[in-house]
């Protein structure tokens, strides 16, 4: 048993921190906060230049630059400082699917550009009428000569207004049983018939709704088999379940500790006891996350362990944000960018931000379903 990062992993973490101190400027930080768009071309290219975009993959031009533990450390550090990586993250999810089930042409078109940080892809699974139950989607893809005609709506297509493509799940066979009649596309967003509208969220993040009206899509943009979209979807969701959330809790606990020190109140017994409770939850969240990563690193498949990590860290974040907002008191209401904000307004932002985390990437209820089946051996509802 060993709970310490080895010296070379600590050195890698320091390298990431030095990179962030250099590349993540206050200007980028401010712009991301003001616009709600977590993306910056220059930052992504700088990441790619280090070999840190898709770093764990075997590549045509060389061996992987990151192992599973380094990839986790990188992602955790990027997440902790809110680096603008959401588009990289969604792009990587899709690039990975293309890598596994994409046609040779598609792989050649996307993967090299992905590793250079020159391509971006938004997710297009969810619809206004279909969220956790993805197989209920209605967006239709009909065969038309060499291609397809697509009609429908896609919700929470974050960054679609700036990305090159959207990862589009369609119903290609309305007669097949739900999971069987789906086909996945990499839809270029400059095609005629596509309209993108902003949707603003509680966290300040801008997301989108995409309207598709008789969009003509060439068959070369198909990912995987016709009516084989479910497989592509599962590949993508596997990735989604492994994103770290404890760094957000870490940022929150640090912000309130900083506030308590600055306010000269850190020695108050009741206050520090409440803080220690959330520091404990952070410790547990971090351990559950590291365990899932450690399992992956040694080639195991964490069936219940990934969901446990996601469930625990996001529920802890929600609880901590609520309680620590009350702990800080009225001053916690002051927003970031307001000159009177305490702890840079991070508490106020994290309260709003926390709410989304138990919803996206698989709601807490979905995670509990998986855990109940995989860890508790309980029958499916």
């Amino acid at each position: 048993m060993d709970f310490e990062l080895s010296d070379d992993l600590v050195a890698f973490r320091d390298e990431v921190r030095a990179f962030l101190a250099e590349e993540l400027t206050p200007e980028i930080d401010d712009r991301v906060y003001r616009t709600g768009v977590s993306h910056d071309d220059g930052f992504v290219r700088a990441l790619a230049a280090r070999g840190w975009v898709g770093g764990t993959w075997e590549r045509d031009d060389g061996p992987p630059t990151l192992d599973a533990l380094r990839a986790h450390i990188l992602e955790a550090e990027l997440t902790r400082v809110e680096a603008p990586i959401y588009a990289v993250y969604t792009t990587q999810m899709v690039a990975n699917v293309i890598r596994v089930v994409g046609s040779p042409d598609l792989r050649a078109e996307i993967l090299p550009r992905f590793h250079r940080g020159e391509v971006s892809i938004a997710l297009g699974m969810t619809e206004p009428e279909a969220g956790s139950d993805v197989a209920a989607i209605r967006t239709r893809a009909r065969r038309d000569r060499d291609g397809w005609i697509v009609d429908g709506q896609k919700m929470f297509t974050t960054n679609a207004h700036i990305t090159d493509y959207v990862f589009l799940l369609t119903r290609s066979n309305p007669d097949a049983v739900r999971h069987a009649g789906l086909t996945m596309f990499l839809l270029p967003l400059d095609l005629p018939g596509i309209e993108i509208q902003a949707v603003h969220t509680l966290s300040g993040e801008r997301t989108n709704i995409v309207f598709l009206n008789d969009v003509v899509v060439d068959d070369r943009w198909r990912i995987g088999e016709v009516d084989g979209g479910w497989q592509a979807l599962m590949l993508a969701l596997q990735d989604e379940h492994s994103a770290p959330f404890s760094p957000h809790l870490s940022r929150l606990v640090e912000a309130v500790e900083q506030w308590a020190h600055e306010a000269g109140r850190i020695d108050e017994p009741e206050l520090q006891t409440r803080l220690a409770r959330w520091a404990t939850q952070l410790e547990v969240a971090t351990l559950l996350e590291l365990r899932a990563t450690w399992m992956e690193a040694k080639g195991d498949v964490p069936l219940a362990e990934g969901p446990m990590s996601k469930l625990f860290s996001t529920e802890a974040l929600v609880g901590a944000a609520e309680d620590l907002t009350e702990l800080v008191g009225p001053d916690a209401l002051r927003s970031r960018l307001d000159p009177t904000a305490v702890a840079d307004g991070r508490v106020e932002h994290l309260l709003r931000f926390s709410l989304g985390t138990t919803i996206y990437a698989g709601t807490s209820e979905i995670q509990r379903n998986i855990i109940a089946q995989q860890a508790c051996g309980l029958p499916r509802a």
Partner: protein
Amino acid sequence: MDFSLDDEQQALVASFADLLSKRSSPAHVRQAEPTGFEPALWRALGEVGVVEMAVPAERGGWGAGPIDLALVAEQVGASAAPAPVIEAQVAARLLASLDDPAASAALDAMLGGEQLETKAVRPVVDGVAELVPAGAVADAAVVLDGDRLRLVSLAASGARCPVANLAAAPLADVTVGDAAPLASGPAALVAFEAALDDWLLLTGAALVGLAGRAHRTTCEYARERRTWNAPIGSYQGVAHPLADDATAVDGARLLVHEAAWELGRHGRRGRELAAMAFAFASETARKATYDAVHFHGGVGFTLEADPQLYYRRARGWPRVWGAPQDAYGRAARARYHTSEAS
């Protein structure tokens, strides 16, 4: 980073799990109530070296570290064993840490199997150490009286007053008297606090075992028991709390292991993590055992069913020292470098 047990640790866990499954079944646990002490089990545990293992090699023991002790404590907790394993180990380690002839003699008597010593987890107030774990069955107790550690013989009449209690644990209020101190001043306080770290860690480990067993029993029941033609475990109202408990038990176990690892290497976060582990394991056991009673339905409320065994101990074992809140306070003082006095 490595979260796995090595071969020796796996063998250690397997041997204790085997012994306890034979000698500390729920039926045994019931038979040992209300005293909460089964002499034959304690002898069997003594024969496999449960006290020796906790004592440093230079003091005649096997020198097992906190991780090994935590692994054993988890098994002890899982079987709700009516045996003062944690108390004896903590007392033995405390005695071994003291430079005093009486402490050495007491330790030798423990290692020889002639005596059972325990330790009061809270300081003496007005001449009495209250609710001393194993105080009802031990021969002597180490207590902190002001800034003095004293070894109180419990054989003398009137020294202890056994207390019937929620957990059916062998608790006693102990009247301290004026036994010669084993240590005094800062050294006594340091030794007492270090022993408390051990006790919090190992009690946390036992609570992980207890919570895990209660949870497993409940999942088995939820697979079998049917309501409206479906296993109750297929209803999300049942399944989701059990999923939360599974997550918390795993998290508590990881935290106990981390705390044990940190204490074992004398890391700077040892005290903080031990208190965190105790607090989180207490909360986890509290909820998992409540759910165990509740999801067994009316059956769970009867004394015939096993969940009540776990429910009562999940509260009684940790509360002789304090509530989760108290442990968070201790963790906070360590984390923010605040003195114990404030």
